[in-house]
């Protein structure tokens, strides 16, 4: 059993040198755009674009957990679906294990589908309501011809269901007979049925209760160690991201505004949005209550009509004229810690005067 997982030392490797370390990146998205056209008028012309993902580069290293955090409308789920090749990017490329899979389809894509699996937010909706658990677990094996006989598939399903902490009696039941946490365990088991290397976790615990969430998070960590998995963990919950991830990317309106090691992001955020997001999280410690701290005003603007220059400027308390004029550069503020902002703001004093 492989148990080495945390490749934290890689956090010191900068993106510029990553080109030479191709094999270390299991999944990579290069300058990915995903625009959804809005058709209108008499001839169905494109009148506008929803710029859900607007130029994102991200690389996920073997064995790590990359966190992708953002509010609704930030494009984090669209980015995840693009990486999974569930939707085609408008522009940009996706690499899996060094191979460009952007243009693959049919049988050649299916080979990669086996190596990358996904767990969805709503476990009930992501399971076919008419399928028993056994059939849900053996179906991916059938699709990828993993089990040679029905008996072998059944044995594998029995093993899987125990791996995720349920028992074999559950195999004959239907999804609606389970609680939310159990359903998510089934969805995880189904994702693991084909021995994937990479698992995209799209808000896997946000519909669950706190103690069930903790059970699932523990299970995910345990499975990662056991099967040497690489995770992309999408969530809006910053506490969960902190608990799960080695590196974190913060998305706002279709772009990654800050990316870096978990510790660096949480302890010294450099982008005003990351800072605002962190200070908005309710802390389960009433002695650290934020009594008079001002909160970020307004809501995320529409991804159809993105502000000029820096897209966060409309809500940013530090916004200047330059922000409206110029697109902010992507700066490497520390090794492996990239920020898309014109300024280097010191938030240690801001905590009081924000």
């Amino acid at each position: 059993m492989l148990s080495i997982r945390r490749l934290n030392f890689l956090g010191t490797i900068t993106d510029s040198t990553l080109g030479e370390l191709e094999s270390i990146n299991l999944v990579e998205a290069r300058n990915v755009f995903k625009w959804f056209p809005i058709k209108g008028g008499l001839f169905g012309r494109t009148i506008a674009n929803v710029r859900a993902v607007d130029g994102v580069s991200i690389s996920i290293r073997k064995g790590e957990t990359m966190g992708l955090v953002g509010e609704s409308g930030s494009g984090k789920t669209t980015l995840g679906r693009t990486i999974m090749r569930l939707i085609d990017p408008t522009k940009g490329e996706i690499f899996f294990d060094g191979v460009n899979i952007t243009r693959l389809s049919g049988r050649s894509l299916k080979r990669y589908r086996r190596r990358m699996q996904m767990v969805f937010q709503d476990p009930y909706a992501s399971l076919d309501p008419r399928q028993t658990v056994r059939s849900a677990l053996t179906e991916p094996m059938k699709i990828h011809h993993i089990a040679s006989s029905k008996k072998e598939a059944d044995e594998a399903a029995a093993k899987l269901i125990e791996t995720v902490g349920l028992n074999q009696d559950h195999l004959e039941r239907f999804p609606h007979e389970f609680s939310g946490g159990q359903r998510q365990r089934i969805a995880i088991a189904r994702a693991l049925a084909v021995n994937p290397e990479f698992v995209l976790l799209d808000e896997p615990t946000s519909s669950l209760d706190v103690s069930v969430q903790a059970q699932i998070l523990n299970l995910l960590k345990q499975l990662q160690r056991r099967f040497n998995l690489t995770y992309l963990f999408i969530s809006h919950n910053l506490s969960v991201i902190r608990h799960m991830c080695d590196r974190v990317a913060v998305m706002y309106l279709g772009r990654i505004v800050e990316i870096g090691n978990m510790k660096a992001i949480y302890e010294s955020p450099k982008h005003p949005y990351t800072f605002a997001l962190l200070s908005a999280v309710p802390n389960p410690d009433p002695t650290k209550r934020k009594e008079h701290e001002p909160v970020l005003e307004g809501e995320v603007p529409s991804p159809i009509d993105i502000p000029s220059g820096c897209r966060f400027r409309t809500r940013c308390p530090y916004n200047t004229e330059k922000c409206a004029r110029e697109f902010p550069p992507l700066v490497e503020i520390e090794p492996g810690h990239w920020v898309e902002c014109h300024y280097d703001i010191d938030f240690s004093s801001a905590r009081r005067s924000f």
Partner: protein
Amino acid sequence: MTQRVEEVPFEPRSVYRRRSGRISEIKYSLYLARKNPLVLSGSVLAIGSILIAALSGIIVDPRSWAFQYPPRYYCWNNPWINWHLQNIKPCPPGTPFYPLGADAFGRNLLNMIILGLPIDLQISFSIVISAFAIGVALGAVAAYAGGLIDEAVLRITDVFFAFPGLVLALVLVAVFGRNLTILTLAVLVVWWPLYVRLTRSQILAEKEKPYAEALKAMGAGRLRILFLHIIPNSIYPVIVQATLDIGGVILTFSSLMFLGFAPSPLTPELGKLVSDGISFVSQAPWLVIFPGLAIVLVALGFNLLGDGIRDILDPRLRR
């Protein structure tokens, strides 16, 4: 490895689903059906009418629909028969040989209704089943292919939706003559587009559900997702519609018959019986009431059954 996966001791719904799986699903459906008296009466009516139709040849003499000549002496007075024979007495319901009375041709009304049922049900079932088959096939293709094919199928259904059923029936009858098959086709032509639309919308809705995407992410092919997952999940509302339509088609078809499209004046079709009786409605209302009642009961039975199936299959009850 220090962590362990916690056992889960309680499952909220396991109490009544201990031997779970398909059998308990069916049991649960039957429970829901029993709980609803309307469903129960609907299924009694529907199954009863099917049984009577199936056994009609045994219950009554299959030739009794034919014109009885010379008319029986206690038959109801009718001017046409009068022309041949004087002194025919009216024959209201309640007499031992004629529990529902006799019609203008001296035929036993009860026998006529029993013989009329299989004709109506056969026609109705053949129309609904063909419409269902065409609808599911075309609807699935349209929804899943999308784009131009979808557009083409939709426009074709639009054309057929625009057909006035009555006029179509008139034209067909004028061209091909009075014939039950022709009339069945006429109704089918205006009936199937509904199923295409319904199936298409169901599949479109189902296609967007996360489980379809989950299957895609898993590597399942399009056909596998469509045939093994999406169609089985979206077919229930179409089945409900079909059950409801059996009653609807009977009503439509008997209306056509009532309007005088009947192939032979003696066809024991329920609508035709009403139409025959209507000229004597003031003197002998039972000639209209009983065949009419039979139509209502059969249609009502299938409607209630359809509603019941919808309630039972309702996902909100299912969860």
